[in-house]
């Protein structure tokens, strides 16, 4: 075994082993610390993939330019969220919303989920990827319902049912891809291996691929949260523990998106198949516009940002749908920035909701006065997510809009309309929450600000300066995406 395949193994082994240990250990301080350590270990292992030579793609595992971006992002946000989670959960234990027993379950599930997501990224087998995505989904279902309140269970149930249908559709799509590949590649394992498929995709049957892509787009798109498949997303975000909301928005959506992208590449490699672009553009725009309108009537702060995630997923899918080096680059950048920003926002929102004892927007006011760090943190986050400079999302939106306008002016106008709508809604809420006459508790927040500010610092840096190697990398990936 080479060092490289070791690193890949570590990325998968650390979470799964940690999950086993965490399921057995009592005491929340210890488990929280262990959770952080395990997440850090996974992150470091993933980071090492950057440095050392990559392993040859095998039957099951693969590390290439595309997924390494996702893995590193995934493990990083996983790590910061575990830090946030430690302080968040401590508060939940104090207030008695969670019992230590559930906590053990929570930490174990956290690591299983990380395992599932990492596996989805590194798998070279479309079947394995499907399994991994489903593991990640099902664990989050369990975590969403962890509070055992009526609303939480309802949300989890909705998530579960809609997710299951999504699972089924994605599987059907996967089978269809296998069927398309079999006459060319031959029976058995090989016809599901990604590296083999992509090499010979041009000779696959286009009709099968077309139908397959629609099913895959629907199956995985349910998890991306594209409208009208989004229904589970807002409730799951709003009712679960906030670290899970952060992970859902920041990571799980990316996992599903990654799967969609993989199949998009596959489809694009076949000249006779329909081009996936228009389909993705349509769904992206629909999601963007729909979510933008939905933002206006939100009264729950977490559900607000959940809809904002739908909106941004719409933008990202739109960008990838437009294709071309510039839009793909922008889409990738947007995805990374959205993950960092949105999870950062959820860190802030988690503490805010704890301090104020409510998630109702109407009951939270004047945060910059009572809790300057949280209030300004949230303000920076919302400003970032709304696409204002000098933060990273501005750059990606700039590239998406300007590159689209030159090619499809009408689409760009619609896009801009959606962006402006969403901007208006977000700023309306921010104005109420961060400013004005303070309302609600003014007790000092017992919060860990590090994860939040670390994320925002990264986003700020990226908005002004992207390191050269990273850019080259992204550009390369953008070219791969076609």
């Amino acid at each position, binding site marked *: 075994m080479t060092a490289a395949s070791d690193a890949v193994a570590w990325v998968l082994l650390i979470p799964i082993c940690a999950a086993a240990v965490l399921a057995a250990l009592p005491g929340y301080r210890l488990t929280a610390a262990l959770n952080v350590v395990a997440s850090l270990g996974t992150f470091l292992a993933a980071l090492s993939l950057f440095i050392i030579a990559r392993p040859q793609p095998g039957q099951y595992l693969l590390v290439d330019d595309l997924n390494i971006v996702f893995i590193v992002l995934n493990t990083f946000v996983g790590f910061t969220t575990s830090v946030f989670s430690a302080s968040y959960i401590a508060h939940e234990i104090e207030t008695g919303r969670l019992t230590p027993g559930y906590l053990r379950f929570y930490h174990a599930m956290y690591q299983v989920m990380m395992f599932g997501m990492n596996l989805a990224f590194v798998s070279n087998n479309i079947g394995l990827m499907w399994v991994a995505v489903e593991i990640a989904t099902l664990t989050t279902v369990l975590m969403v319902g962890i509070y055992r309140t009526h609303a939480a269970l309802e949300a989890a149930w909705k998530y579960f049912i809609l997710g299951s*249908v999504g699972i089924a559709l994605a599987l059907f799509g996967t089978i269809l891809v296998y069927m398309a590949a079999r006459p060319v590649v031959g029976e058995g394992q090989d016809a599901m291996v990604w590296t083999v498929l992509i090499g010979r995709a041009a000779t696959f049957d286009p009709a099968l691929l077309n139908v397959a892509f629609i099913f895959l787009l629907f199956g995985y798109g349910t998890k991306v949260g594209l409208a009208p498949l989004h229904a589970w997303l807002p409730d799951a975000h709003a009712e679960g523990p906030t670290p899970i909301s952060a992970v859902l928005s920041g990571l799980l959506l990316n996992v599903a998106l990654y799967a969609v992208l993989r199949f998009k590449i596959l489809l694009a490699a076949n000249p006779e198949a329909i081009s996936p672009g228009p389909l993705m553009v349509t769904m992206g725009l629909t999601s963007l516009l729909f979510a933008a309108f939905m933002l*206006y009537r939100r009264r729950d702060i977490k559900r607000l940002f959940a809809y904002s995630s739908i909106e941004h997923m719409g933008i990202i899918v739109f960008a990838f749908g437009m294709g071309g080096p510039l839009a793909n680059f922008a889409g990738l950048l947007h995805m990374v920035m959205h993950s960092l920003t949105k999870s950062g926002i959820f860190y802030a929102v988690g503490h805010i909701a704890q301090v104020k004892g409510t998630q109702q927007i109407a009951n939270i006011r004047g945060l910059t006065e009572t809790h300057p760090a949280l209030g300004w943190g949230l303000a920076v986050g919302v400003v970032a997510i709304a696409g204002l400079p000098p933060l990273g999302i*501005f750059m990606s939106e700039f590239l998406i*809009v300007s590159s689209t*306008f030159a090619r499809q002016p009408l689409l760009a106008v619609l896009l801009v309309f959606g*962006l402006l709508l969403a901007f208006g809604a977000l700023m*309306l809420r921010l104005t109420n929450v961060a*400013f004005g006459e303070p309302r609600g508790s003014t007790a000092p927040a017992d919060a860990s600000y590090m994860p939040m500010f670390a994320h925002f610092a990264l986003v700020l840096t990226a908005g002004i300066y992207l390191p050269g190697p990273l850019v080259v990398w992204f550009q390369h990936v953008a070219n791969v995406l076609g």
Partner: protein
Amino acid sequence: MIPGVDQQVWCVAALLGTTLLAIAANRSNKSTTVVYGATLVISLIAFARALSFLVAHAEATEMVLPIGLPWLGSHFRLDALAAFFLAVVNLGGAAASLYGLGYGSHESAPHRVLPFFPAFLAGMNLVVLADDAFTFLLCWEFMSLASWALVMAHHREADNARAGYVYLVMASFGTLALLLAFGLLSGAGVGYGFAAIRSAPHAPSEAALVLALMLLGAGSKAGLVPLHVWLPLAHPAAPSHVSALMSGVMTKVAIYGFIRVVFDLLGPPGWSAGIVVLVLGGATAVMGILYALMENDIKRLLAYSTIENVGVIFASLGLALAFQANGLGLAAALAFTAALFHVLNHSFFKSLLFFGAGAVLTSTGERDMEKLGGLIHRMPLTSFAFLVGCVAISALPPFNGFVSEWLVFQAVLRSPDLPQWGLKIMVPAVGALLALAAALAAACFVKAFGVTFLGRARSPVAAAAGEVDRCSLAAMYGLAALCFLAGILPGLVIDGLAPVAQAIIGHRMPVQANDPWLSIVPIAESRSSYNGLLVFVFITAAASLAVYFIHRFASRAIRRGPAWGCGFADPTPAAQYSGASFAQPIRRVFGTLIFQAREHVDMPSPGDPRPARLTVDMHDLVWERLYTPLTKAVWFFADRLNQLQFLTIRRYLSLVFATLVTLLLVLAIWS
């Protein structure tokens, strides 16, 4: 040392550093002095460098920083146009900093102002320096963001929160319009660098679209009607020195953006574009000043007056476009110079007036003119400076406002040279609008000064007001002196603007320095000329002569007595003419149509002890016809779509199923 772009960028870096310093020294009580002191020094240096660039007719310099858009870098460039606007920005910045040194000490929440003030200045500097689309937009929006934070400084007042919100949404709308414009300009592989955009050919249809988008984008920031609605909300909400910057300087940065893209990057977009800009400018000027006249909040009045001045500037830019499209270089240079001159002038007197309003605000705590009055006795120095500002902005000789207005009229009078009938007829018509706006402006500032500073105090706070601190006064008098100097020595300014016109239009106005007696002669002496200095000397001489003779040979006795009150002795100050009543004749003339103003008189019959009441019902039609329906539409759709949040799982599944089947159907039919 050759003035170059690197020095300007260093100044910006220093400003950003000041921001960090202000964040770090959050609660220190010295921070006000330190921050404003630092911004004062930096702005002065930047101003001096920009000015020396203009005077030296230096070559444009460029630099690239490895930040911003990765494969492009951040391009910065200092050319004549940028140097002029940098001078405007930094002079305004320096004045505001000086004013802030005094005014800032009254600030209740300095930690909400200090960090953003230098950032705002830096943002405006950067917009002017930017030389690629990404950097430009980034800085543009950064400028908006910083000023938004300043608007939100006094966030507890609900009005301010709303103002900030409207402002930010409109700013974002503008930025997105600019984004589309740049998307169009940089399309088809041109790239985002300004140099590349400049050299690429642009089709006429594209040019028209870019112009429309620029009018939306830069126009919304500058305050073109009907995109102006945020301006009278946001500018007054900020602390006064920031209001001065926003009104006096930030709108100029927006105009810079318009000039940079339309004149420089796009090339002249045809004469019909000129008509559009011209008419929009004229309409904006009249509408803006009418709004101002109806206003009784002194800062809002000033903000509306900014809209008027922006209209004047756009009208003369439209003239420049029209002339340039027809190859009338000299006339275009005249109109363009007039626009720039007005940019400079407006930055002087609008800052001055906002400073004055700020002084009144600090001293009385009141912005409502109906509660002020008689301040000329309590604040003599402030009132004199404010008076200078009022005279200047009313375009009265010998101050600077008149000179730029005069130049605009001279440009209007070149309209017979234009070949197109539309222009021939529209140009004098817009000229009439501008004349109307100028006359109304005079009326408006008679009201502003008269109600605020003259008469008797209408409230105890006004009666107890006192003079403001020296720093504020120094800032006001500095600007007042500039208003005066630019008014009596306009030739110097015009010569200073020559390199800008040369660079952008390709022509320049004749050299004025050689004209006798420091006159200005835009075209030829037989055609028109003006000499502010002589007019000033004549008036002074004539007045002094009269004073001398009368005091020497006639009477100089004075007796104080009660004012004539039609037989009523000592009526209350409430019996004075108020701001609303002052505006009433003009409201009757214009208001019925433009504001749908209706007066309702409730006159009790004799013997009825009720007081008589007059209520005036006015409507802001732009809000009611444009923005309210838009907002309503958004909320209507939001409400409708919101039903989707409350479906049952089966219905959600049906949604998924229906979409899936639809797509499969499309696939079946299509392929």
